[in-house]
């Protein structure tokens, strides 16, 4: 038996090293399964909790064009959550169990969604910055080792491509608008910049999972590398908008051919992760509420289906 496990492990390692995919029924180490359930579900939870801050502005979108675009975007997030939950379910856990983990507070989701959306410009800033950071995180995952996750991510990334453009267009319109609109855009950038930076995860020194995740191709670059990529890509975009990134230490480093940036307030980050962000409670209440209030609906549909089945077999 021992030898058998060792053989299976060797075969598994060989596949990973050769860039072969692992599929649901393949043998995998328990740690691989657990880590994937954790990461994929965390990703799925982030999608559906992420619907809430933007959903907050659907009814108030300032034009019909903006309203349909925002609605379609938030709907896509539901779709992405669905693809990811499905991928996770192939690892032998049900969507209901995953919801229970979210609702009980056991599972985590991206902390950025615990910040409030207080003006329309936040729809622009989220699309531009939050989706911008998310894309940097997500694109490498299309080549991750677990087949169902990689396939879900291909679909997600394909659909995601309009999201950031949608956000940037909102920002651009505001910046080309009245002084009041431009101020609204700057204010949104001020509030969303640091949370977006922190979205790329703790610094490499603090990150506990990186090495293992690299091996399993859950990660291709370290958090700090991804963050650098985000800064380098975003600064010229802010310049184009005529907005100022709220970091006095931000400056071009000619030697590194990259931007240097200032320190982040990690204490705030960990406070939000631990549940003390401005919206942790309302987000969780909204999710639990939707699920609890939907129970009689889900039960009714199931009861109806069972009655119909009986009629057919009778």
């Amino acid at each position: 038996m021992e030898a058998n496990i060792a053989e299976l492990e060797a075969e598994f390692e060989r596949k990973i090293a050769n860039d072969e995919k692992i599929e649901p029924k393949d043998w995998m180490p328990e740690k691989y399964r657990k880590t994937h359930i954790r990461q994929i579900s965390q990703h799925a939870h982030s999608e559906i909790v992420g619907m809430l801050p933007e959903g907050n502005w659907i009814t108030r979108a300032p034009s019909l064009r903006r309203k349909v675009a925002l609605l379609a975007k938030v709907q896509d997030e539901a779709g992405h959550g669905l693809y990811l939950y499905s991928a996770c379910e192939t690892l032998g856990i049900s969507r209901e169990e995953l919801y229970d983990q979210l609702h009980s507070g056991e599972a985590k989701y991206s902390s950025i969604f615990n910040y409030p959306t207080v003006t329309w410009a936040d729809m622009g800033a989220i699309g531009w910055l939050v989706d911008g950071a998310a894309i940097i995180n997500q694109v490498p995952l299309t080549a991750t080792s677990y087949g169902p996750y990689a396939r879900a991510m291909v679909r997600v990334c394909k659909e995601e491509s309009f999201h950031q453009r949608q956000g940037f267009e909102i920002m651009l319109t505001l910046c080309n608008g009245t002084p009041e609109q431009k101020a609204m855009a700057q204010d949104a950038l001020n509030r969303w910049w640091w949370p977006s930076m922190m979205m790329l995860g703790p610094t490499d020194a603090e990150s506990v999972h990186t090495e293992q995740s690299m091996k399993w191709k859950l990660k291709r670059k370290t958090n700090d590398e991804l963050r650098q990529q985000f800064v380098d890509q975003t600064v010229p975009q802010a310049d184009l908008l005529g907005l100022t990134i709220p970091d006095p230490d931000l400056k071009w480093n000619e030697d590194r051919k990259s931007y240097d940036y200032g320190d982040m307030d990690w204490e705030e980050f960990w406070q939000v992760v631990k549940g003390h962000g401005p919206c942790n409670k309302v987000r969780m209440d909204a999710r639990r509420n939707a699920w609890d209030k939907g129970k009689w609906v889900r039960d009714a549909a199931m009861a109806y289906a069972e009655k119909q089945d009986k009629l057919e077999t009778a």
Partner: protein
Amino acid sequence: MKNWPLWEVFVRSKNGLEHRHCGSLHASDATMALENARDVYTRRMEGVSIWVVPSSAITASNPDNNGEFFEPAKDKAYRHPTFYELPEELKHM
């Protein structure tokens, strides 16, 4: 009450092509599975036809049996055209 079962969704992207597996979803019955598949997987004109199958109805081969299932095909090179040696001028037969 039981949870909504899982369904596998297959979409034909255009006539002439086969249905391809594109993902899964939950639905209480087949009608709903088809409607949900339409709403979830064909929002961007991805399809002209949808199949839904209860995931529980799929019988899958076991990777443990991959040896006996798939290895024996490996040495049957005579099933492939390149096995047969033909003169240069007939290369495209």
